[in-house]
């Protein structure tokens, strides 16, 4: 296996703390906040993260496939989640300790509930507005009511973090090779 070459392209407006473990070819868009102790491993293929995402502590984003893993804008990866999907849309929420397998493609406005395991054996795409909850990972479709307020909340969340995190954490600057 070829050695992983680190190539980080972090936008100047993104806030990435120093304690984050980054490996491989990673691109982080403007406005994204990566908390300390997060892990982003682009082992086999590159990872491209959009703008305004919030990646919290102990979140693990791993790409073990050769294709590019594209994460969209304004997603929230809560504490302890593990995500390996090849593509994620916008405004999704992956709650605490959830696990999403590499066979799943997530569209926009989805909610994966806390501690849910989305691990289907076959390839699957979650439609827009899917909500997964409960210990058995039941699904239902969100009607979409309240999405404007949620989107607004997400933006305010990211803005607050961009303001507060640099005051208490060291930031990683520039490209690493």
């Amino acid at each position: 296996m070829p050695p992983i070459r680190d190539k980080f392209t972090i936008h100047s407006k993104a806030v990435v703390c120093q304690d984050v473990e980054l490996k491989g070819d990673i691109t982080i868009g403007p406005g994204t906040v990566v908390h300390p102790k997060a892990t982003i491993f682009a082992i086999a293929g590159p990872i491209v993260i959009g703008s305004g995402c919030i990646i919290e502590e102990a979140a693990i984003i791993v790409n073990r496939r050769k294709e590019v893993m594209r994460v969209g804008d304004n997603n929230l990866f809560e504490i302890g989640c593990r995500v390996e999907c090849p593509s994620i849309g916008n405004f999704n929420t992956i709650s605490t300790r959830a696990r999403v397998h590499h066979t799943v493609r997530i569209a926009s406005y989805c909610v994966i509930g806390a501690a849910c395991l989305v691990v289907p054996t076959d390839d699957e795409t979650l439609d827009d507005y899917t909500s997964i909850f409960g210990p058995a990972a039941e699904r239902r479709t969100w009607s979409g009511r309240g999405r404007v307020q949620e989107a607004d909340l997400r933006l305010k969340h990211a803005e607050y973090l961009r303001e507060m995190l640099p005051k208490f954490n060291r930031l990683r600057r520039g490209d690493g090779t």
Partner: protein
Amino acid sequence: MAPTIHYYCPCQSGELLQTPPPPHMASSSASFHLLHSLFFCEECDAVRCNRCVAVEVSGYYCPNCLFEVPSASVRAEKNRCARNCFSCPICRSTLQVVASDPPDGGDGRPSASLSNVGEPPFFLYCNHCRWDSAEVGITFEKPTGLAAQLQKFEDSAPESLEFERLKEHFEPFLPAASAALARDVPGVGKYNPLARSRVGRDRTANKDEMPEYKSRMEISVLGQLGSEGDDSDVDALRRMENVEEIASLEQRWGNSWTTSLRTSDLKPLRIPLHSKVSKRCPTCRHILIKPEQKAQSVRYKIKLVAANYLPAITVGIPHASGTDTARRPQTKATGVSDDRNAGILTAGKSYPFHLALTNPLYDPIQVRLSVQRMHVTAVTDGTAPEKARRTPFAVSLPTSPFPVAAFAEAWEYDDDDDMFGLEDDDLGLDVGRSRDRDGKGKIKAVGVLEKRANVTVVGGEVVIGKEARGHVKFNMLVSYTYRSDDPLPSEDGAGTPSRTVVKSPEVKTFTFYTVVDLGPILPREEKIDPDI
């Protein structure tokens, strides 16, 4: 399965018989409880369990808003919260009142005019599964006072109207609305007996005759509202596409009336109230448990639990029994294999086990253990009856009383008893670190093994017969003596000089039974072990 110990409460046995039933019988499990669920009555000096205490409600509260509901309104509101607390019909978590989205002019750009209160119509929203009440058509004009707004909907439901009509129909025939009926059925008793005189026709007619009742709606129409199992249900089931369309049992059985089967018809329910209870001793009526009045506090004003009076006993079987070398833990993580080996009791071997007693009192106690003899008449497998009557296992425990130190704060204990580092599991194997060794150099298995802080570990041994089956369970009688705090009448001059009054504090003894379950017995394997 880890070994367990349960304590005995004599409430199930008769008045005179205070000994527990044989533990291998299935019905005996009702009398044995874990220590944390038992209470202790100081007046009667007896253990009380949840089955024998007298329970009375001390208050009702809503688990969501923590509002204390006075008991008068509890019945009026049908044991539900009258304020804005609803539970999601899909996932049964609490619903939140949210405003609708403002009309967005652009393509998802946040509009700056999001006001604090939000815009009507308001609806209920579940944060967990993202269900919202607009799917069933329930919306509100104001974010507060939801119960009042919903009341209008509920009152115009066909079931309620039917019920009102039934009450009006039967009202003339009730001689006087009895107080009990008025309490149970809201609405009865409101009617004035003077109103009956208007219905003059009934006085002349026979009291037993009643005009026929005509319902408001046809029964078949009503039947479609609930799941009566008739054609409409069958049609719905035929057209069903996936199983999530049918509401599950957990989602439906909280409703008062039968509702339709479909998930899309489920309505949000008001959150049922919880109650705080206080418990009393059944014989002396002394209060054992009395919670605080405030709903949000979890403490108790009076808390007489058995754990504060009885020594807590935990049972353990040290891993890798000393007599069995063939079952040595493998080289991988010993934590996993220890658990597996610790629970294994094989027929035909003997195992030491540890009992750790923790003293909760502020005085040191002397404990004496004894095994209750019991007759084992039935064994599960139907082998020859002579073998079945032999006792399947023999337990030996230290018979002499041993002390357990008093409870004190952690920093008050001396450091010469090594509190850390010496683990019970090592005592069975490690020769060099054993504390109690007799002259022959063999490690003593039965007897006091260790004393530290207010815990004393004693060891016992169980020898399992070759034909034994089932669980190793035995009743153990624990009796402990302690010096009570009651001050004695001091020796004053009035005492006769010829009688010597020993000025010693009063010594009290308390006895209780426990059942120790060491785990299931595995039948002996066929391969020959060199040790046996």
